[in-house]
Structure formats: C-alpha cells, structure tokens
C-alpha cells in the first residue's frame, strides 16, 4: 500500500493505492493529487485568481467565459438543482457569507435566492441574473476533485485505490487487495460501515462546521430556498456512482429531510442513503448492502 496526501480546499486529501510503492505508482498518485490542487486553485472562493472568483466578480456585469471543465460542472449543478427541488444550489454565496462561513460577514440577501445564474453553451459562459449572486462550490468541489483524481489514477493503470477529502468525501477504485470492497466507518462512534467498490461516499452533517449567528450556533448546511440552516442533529451519508453526485445529494438529503415529505421519491435509484436524526431510528434507503451496522446487526432497508 502507498499513501500520499496534499492540503487543498482547507482540508487534507489522502490517497491509498492498493499496490506496492514504486516510481510509477508514486507518479500516478502525484498526478491525481495535482488534479485536486488544480481544482482548489480553480474553484476556491478564497483565491482571487480562481475561475469562480472571476465569475463572482464580473458575471453580474457581463458574461464570463469559462473553460469546458468548469462549464460542464456548472451545467451539472443546474441539473442537480432541478432534480433536488432546489435543495442543492451553488448560488448560495451571499447566504453563506451572511451566516459567517466565508470570511467577512455580510447582510442577508432579501427575498428568494433561486434562479440567479444562467449558462450559454455557445460562448461557454456564465452570467448572473440577480445582482447579489455569488457562486459557492463548497458542497460539490471536493467530490468533483476526487472524481477527477480517480480518473487520473485509472488513466495511469491504477485499479485499486481509496481517495478521500477531509474524510467526508470518499471515492473507491476497485477493491483493496484480498477483499471484496473498501469498508469505511461512519460517524464519531463508527456505528455504521459503508461498503464501496467503484463507488463514492459522502457524509454531510451540519455540526461539521458551525458559526454563531444572532446568538445561536448554526451549521454550515442551509436550505437555499429559505436560507434557514438545517437542524444540527441531522447526518446524511450517501453512496453514489460518483463523488460529485454523492456530495451534492448528501447535502440535498439533509435539506429535504429538514423540509419533511417523502425522501424515497427524491432519491436517484442508483444511490444508497443513510439518514440519522438524533433520538430517532436511522433511516436506510436504497440498495441493500451499501451500509451495514458495524456491530453486525442486519439493517432494514426501505
């Protein structure tokens, strides 16, 4: 096994390659880490020269040209916003700043924050349709970077690897040598175990990062429609074919749960969901065997 790591997106990304250490494997691992570092430089709202910062600066006044990679990501973000009924939305920059999660606090934007940007495929550009729009890829950038890193590993002949960003977004390539899947314990007490093979896991919990707002402790996940933070006791783990989808849907799952209503209708068929709410029975949705209680009891899937 070979372990490599880098610091990016305000956290630590780590790769474990299921092969012997050697110049080739190390070079492949470094190429994957470099993809992650590039994503950080391109998508961080904290870096002035990032593509997202450029868009946030200028897209109110004029269309801003994007490179094909970011354009594609924004297109998928728009699709995800529609699929999640607005529970996932990257146009939440002002709301995040109003709650105190992105540097200097600002006043909360007035009214709805939906429908704030549009894309033009012909010119590969983004334009903001509301003056106070700011994009924030915080709920999808780690997953996107991990998918690109995993693709880089595959291109370079690596068939077995586990990659994670800050332990909350995970991608599994194949399985570890001598096992049928990568097993990842979830939560502070590790009650649950996710089983991954050519799939990705994302765990979202509002208490992962908090801020003080008007005398209350609030979590960093909020409903884009209402601007209201999701209750702190919730936690969602989502297994999906890509880390990008897992990231977006684990955020959306929390928001949808907080809104109430049926989750089964919303969940894409190729995903497994585990939802925990303090003091209530855990809810398991989707494909059997995605999640298992670590202590050995068989879970009940709906």
């Amino acid at each position, binding site marked *: 096994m070979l372990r490599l790591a880098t610091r990016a997106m305000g956290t630590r990304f780590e790769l474990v390659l299921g092969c012997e250490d050697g*110049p*080739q494997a*190390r*070079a*492949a691992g*470094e*190429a994957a880490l*470099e993809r992650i570092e*590039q994503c950080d*430089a*391109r998508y961080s709202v904290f*870096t*002035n*020269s990032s*593509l997202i*910062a*450029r868009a946030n*600066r200028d897209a109110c006044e004029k269309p*801003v*040209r*994007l*490179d*094909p*990679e970011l354009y594609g990501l924004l297109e998928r973000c728009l699709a995800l916003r529609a699929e999640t009924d607005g529970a996932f939305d990257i146009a939440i920059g002002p709301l995040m700043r109003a709650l105190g999660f992105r*540097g*200097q606090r600002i006043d909360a934007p007035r009214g709805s924050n939906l429908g704030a940007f549009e894309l033009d495929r012909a010119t*590969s550009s983004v334009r903001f349709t509301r003056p106070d729009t700011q994009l924030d890829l915080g709920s999808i950038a780690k997953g996107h970077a991990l998918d690109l890193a995993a693709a880089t590993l595959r*291109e*370079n*002949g690596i068939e077995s690897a586990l990659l994670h960003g800050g332990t909350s977004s995970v991608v599994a390539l194949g399985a570890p040598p001598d096992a049928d899947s990568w097993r990842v314990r979830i939560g502070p007490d590790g009650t649950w175990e996710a089983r991954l093979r050519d799939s990705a896991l994302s765990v979202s919990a509002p208490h992962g990062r908090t801020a003080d707002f008007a005398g209350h402790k609030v979590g960093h996940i909020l409903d884009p429609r209402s601007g209201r933070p999701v209750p702190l006791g919730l936690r969602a783990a989502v297994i999906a074919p890509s880390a990008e989808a897992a990231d977006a849907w684990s955020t959306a799952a929390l928001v949808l749960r907080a809104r109430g209503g049926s989750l089964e209708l919303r969940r894409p068929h190729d995903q497994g969901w585990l939802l925990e709410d303090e003091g209530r029975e855990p809810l398991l949705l989707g494909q059997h065997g995605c999640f298992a209680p670590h202590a050995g009891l068989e879970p009940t899937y709906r």
Partner: protein
Amino acid sequence: MTSPDRRQLLHASAGGAAALFLAPSFELLHPTILGAPLTVAVIGVGRQGRAILGELATIPEASVVAVCDSDDSRLQSAMRRAQGLRGYASHIELLDKEPGIAAVVIATPTHLHKEIALACIAAGKHVFCETPLAHTIDDTRAIVTAAKGSSKVFAAGYQGRSNPVYSLARSFFKAGTLRQLSHLRAQDHKKTTWRTPGSTPERDRELNWHLDAELSLGLAGEKGSHQLDVFHHFLGRHPVAVRGTGEIRLHKDGRTVADTILLEARFEDGLRASYSATLCNSYEGRYELIGGEMALIKLGWTHGWMFKEADAPTQGWEVYANRQQYHNDSGITLIADATKLAAQGKLTEGVGLPYTSLYYALADFVKAASEGKAPACSASDAARSTVVGILANQAVRSGSEVAIDPALLESL
C-alpha cells in the same frame, strides 16, 4: 507601467482623506484586447499545455482551434476539452493542414522547442514559446536569430515580466525605494517526484525527459531560470558567474538529475543571488526576495509584499495600506485593484491577483499578436535567462564556478 508617484496611486476617500494603495493599474489587471479573436494552436499538451489550454479558454480574444501532441492519449484528452478542436500528432502536419492559424503556443519538452519554433516562425506564425527556450546555447541562439528575423510576434514564457504584481513591485524598485541592494534570494521547494507516469518503459523515458541529465537543464534551468529572470528583469543586468551544487537526496529512482540544488550567482558589483530548489520538502514553496538598505520585496506568483526597515522614510499613505504579519515582520501587501476595492470597503479581499500568472503571460501574447505590439518577454530577454539557466545547470553538475560571458548574452 504604473509609476509609484502619489498622483497615480492616490485614492481620495469620501471623507476627503487621501489613502495610497500599492495598486497596479486597472488596464494591467484586466487587459482588453482589440480586434477579432486570434486563432491559436497549442503544441504539446502535457501538464503545462493543459494549463495553457485552460487559461486560453477563458480569454475571449483567443480561439484555440487545434492541438498537437505526439502522445495519442494526451492528444485525445486535450481534444475532449473543447468541441471542434482538431488534433495532430506532429507540428509539421499541423502547420501543413492548418494554414489559417495565426498563432502557436509551444509547450513541448525544452529540447524539442528549437525545431518546432523554427518551423512555426518560418510558417509565419506568431509564437509563444515556453521557457527555458532551449537546452543548449546553440539552440537558444538559433531560436533568437529566427525570432528576430520574423515580422510576427515572438513571446516567451518567463511570467515575471507580464505579472502585474511583479510590475508594480518593479516600479517601486526602479524608483529607488530599496536604495543600496544587499542581497537577492529565491527558492522553489515542493515535495514531489517530478515524475510523469508513463504507460511503457519507453514512454516513461520520453515523458520524464526532465529527469535525464542529457536532455534536461535540471532544477537550475527548468525552474531556477524563471526566478533568476525576475532578478534580471528588475536589475536590467545579468550575473557574471555562477556556482552550484546538487545531489539526489530522496528520489533514488534511476534519475540522473539532482533533486536538491543550491546556486550562487554573482553580479559584477559583488551583489549575489542565492537560490535553492528541492523536490524533497515543501516548506515556504516558491518565492523571490530582493533585499536592500531600506526595504525588502517578497514576490510569490499572485502575491507580493514590501517589508520596510524601521529607519526607512515613512509616507502618509502607509497608515492606510493593508498589511500582513510574517512571524516578527509586517509586510505591506501589493494589492491588485486596490482603489476600486477600497471604495467598496473590501480592501482585504483584494490580496492576490484576480487572474493567474499564466493568464497574464498568455493575455499579453494575445494582445501583442492582435495589436502588433512588443510582448512583455521577448526572444532576447528569454534567451539571456535561458543561457544563465544552462550555465547554472553546468555549475550544479560540475560543482565548480562557471563564468557567464556578458558578450555572449549581449549577442542574443
């Protein structure tokens, strides 16, 4: 370039009090380019070529229409990045089949630059060539001679010359803010194998040309020449001798190029530039320092700072300047777009350039080619720093001092 005089840098706040910020001009930060989009081909789409494609895609005045690489998987991967991109396996085929292309960007391995650059210049293209320009003095001379004989633009990739923060810092330097120079220092430290994964042993050797001492200028040339060029640009002169040492400290994987080097370049007046590069440790990354009697300038790609001595003359505007603390020292940040940001009360958000250093280099080339202007980094500028890099690499390999003939540099 912005001159650091009060008139240009003064910003009157609403209350009438004047604050001076260390700001490059708006035009430098957000270049506007006249004319129809420039059609561009990128030759070499490895790591640097892909970064170039990414930046060119965001410049509306440039339109990348073709890419070229001898490695098919790289070529296919580059062609997937945009619709309608045409791909070629060799520059000869590209030039033959794409006569309408106005400009090319060359980002191949250094030792392949000469043949490609000469062919592109002969075909009447505007050329942006990555740096160092070549791995031998003869090849460097051949490129410069061809570029000088061309009616088109030839720009090179030493980015310190087009970077607005560097230009701003240089204007302070030229205005004598540092007074008597004491020392120059630069480093590039990053923990990495510097190796590119290859699918076969043969392909691995080709991709990792920079680890082969016969083809590569090593850390001194491939990385050091970029940072030494910053000193050449600021001082307007070059060192007369260079000493160096190098060792493989960590990456004992068959490479013949040192993974850790030290250089000392000496200027005619005794001023010295020390340089270190390593692939074993990442502490403090990459920066250049220019130290003097009254202040020290620190430059790091998208950021720049000025650390003033306690006895340096204080000007009124300094009270308003944005500062950052470094251990025991406080540096004035060289802020992009400071006047506009100050008006919005967002000065601290302006630390760091609004675009990458590579973007400015490419935008400068596109502007020069579109408007028929001289580029920020000319063939001669780049050739001289390339030769200093070649000789610095010789010093590292031999472990002894190598003289740098001023007449040789002057002839380029």
